[in-house]
């Protein structure tokens, strides 16, 4: 794994609080990496530190092994896709995309035009070159923002909650497009989001942040199935804490028959969610509540009924 970006003990103190506290991770070439966490956890600040919009209080940022410490934002070979896209309202789509290329200089008009055409083709926006930002839809604006950054072929593309301004359906579509885009261009993506589903579905690796700290880093499967802290476990999905171990609702089996190691419980209620049923039951042994996620077809249970709860040992995890 070749490292393209290295973040070492990055810290940023503001007057009122510590936004980022000793965060370290590295980004591999061509990797789709997500920084996920609740609002205020410091993920956006981390992104801004990498982009150069803020100065770190301490810590190091290395791009391809070179320190970015004294480089102002406009000299860093990383590019940012802003949450509100920040398209220049007075420039057409083509001029927006050309902006970075024109600043660099050294390219002929024809070369620039060709790069623009390719970039717009990449994001499926060919034909909209002469439109102004206020003449295209929200989803299209996002693609212009992507094209504008990608045309510069940065070493890392930084995305600050790019999908949060889109409606739910568009968001799902764009997720796939983003993933495909990343694969096609082979550029490392550093994706910031508060939506854990997004992070898990898109990333090669995920880093969960909380209160300025990096809590856990790993592949989606690793962090979901083997969370190292309580926070990570609860942030990435629902957890049942049963007898010191954590078990995800989908790993819980409910049966009328008793099995080895199964715990007895009384059904409290169930909620029909369309694709599954969330069944809550109270364990007889210690009174703790447990939620199981079961297929609607396999749920004949009634409230007050006595059932048996079990799960595979491999599905449980323990946190300090």
């Amino acid at each position, binding site marked *: 794994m070749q490292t393209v970006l290295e973040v070492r003990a990055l810290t940023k103190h503001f007057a009122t609080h510590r936004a980022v506290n000793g965060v370290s991770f590295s980004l591999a070439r061509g990797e789709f990496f997500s920084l996920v966490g609740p609002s205020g956890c410091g993920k956006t600040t981390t992104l801004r530190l990498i982009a*150069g919009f803020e100065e770190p209080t301490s810590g190091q940022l290395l791009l391809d092994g070179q320190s970015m410490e004294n480089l102002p934002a406009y000299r860093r070979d990383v*590019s940012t896709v802003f949450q*509100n896209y*920040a398209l*220049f309202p007075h420039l057409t789509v083509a001029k927006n995309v050309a*902006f970075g290329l024109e600043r660099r200089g050294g390219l002929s008009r024809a070369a620039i035009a060709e790069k623009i055409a390719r970039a717009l083709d990449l994001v499926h926006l060919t034909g909209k070159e002469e439109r102004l930002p206020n003449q295209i839809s929200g989803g299209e604006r996002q693609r212009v923002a992507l094209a504008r950054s990608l045309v510069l072929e940065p070493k890392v593309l930084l995305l600050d909650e790019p999908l949060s301004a889109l409606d739910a359906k568009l968001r799902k579509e764009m997720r796939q497009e983003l993933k495909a885009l990343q694969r096609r261009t082979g550029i490392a993506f550093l994706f910031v989001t508060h939506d854990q589903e997004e992070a898990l579905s898109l990333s090669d690796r995920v880093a969960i942040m909380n209160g300025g700290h990096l809590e856990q880093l790993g592949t989606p499967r690793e962090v979901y199935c083997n969370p190292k802290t309580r926070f990570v476990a609860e942030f990435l999905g629902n957890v049942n804490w049963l007898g010191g171990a954590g078990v995800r609702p989908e790993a819980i089996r409910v049966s009328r028959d008793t099995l080895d190691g199964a715990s007895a419980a009384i059904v409290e209620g169930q909620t029909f969610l369309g694709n599954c049923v969330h069944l809550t039951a109270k364990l007889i042994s210690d009174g703790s509540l447990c939620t199981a996620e079961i297929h609607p077809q396999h749920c004949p249970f009634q409230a007050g009924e006595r059932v048996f709860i079990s799960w595979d040992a491999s599905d449980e995890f323990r946190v300090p």
Partner: protein
Amino acid sequence: MKRFLPAYACAAYLFLYLPLLALGVFSFNSSKIAVWHGFTLDWYSSVFHNAALMEGTLNSLIIALVATAAATVIGTLAAYALWQKRSSWLTGSLYLSLLSPEIVTGVSLLVFFQWVFHFLKLQLGMHTVILAHISFSLAYVVIVVLARLQTFDRSLEEAAADLGATSWQTFRHVTAPLLLPGIVAAALLCFTVSFDDYVITSLVAGVNSETLPMIIYAMARKGVSPEVNALSVMITVGLGSLVLISGRLESKR
């Protein structure tokens, strides 16, 4: 209460516009006294035939145009710099300059110029008026442009930097073009303020640079004259239009 407010507002607007409307109506009056006699455009044409008035108008225009150009450029740059990072002494001094009574500003400039002339062997004239106008209109420009900047989306500047633009390039290619309506609005306002100034101008003008307000003042002191009425209407309509255009530009998104 519900009926009081609209009625009151009507009366208030009437109060605000009545003097100017009266002036306007009677500028077409063929009699010199305040009794309507008949419609005429004579007073308007006599304004154009009055050499002194025309010269005064020319002087006022030159001064206003030069001062506006300079103040707009300097003020816009200053406002941009202040928006990036506040400077309390500059902002404070601009506010002070805005609130200082004109007589104090005028006197201080007169005194200053005379003191400087001890060393430079110069006289009061158009150049001193222009400098004075730049000085007091700067604050107006800064206020208008700064107000416009407050609503400017900072992430656009960040995006420009992110894409490789230096501070100057960001200003030139992104911020300034988007600020243009506000800058033009500030310039129009500046022109209006400069064209109308009497107090400061009269103190630093010297002998050969009479401006239009100075002439009008002298005529108004002598008494009411229909020529002044006609002139007043023309100036009001002219300046009023500039202000309307400026307002339009200021609110344009």
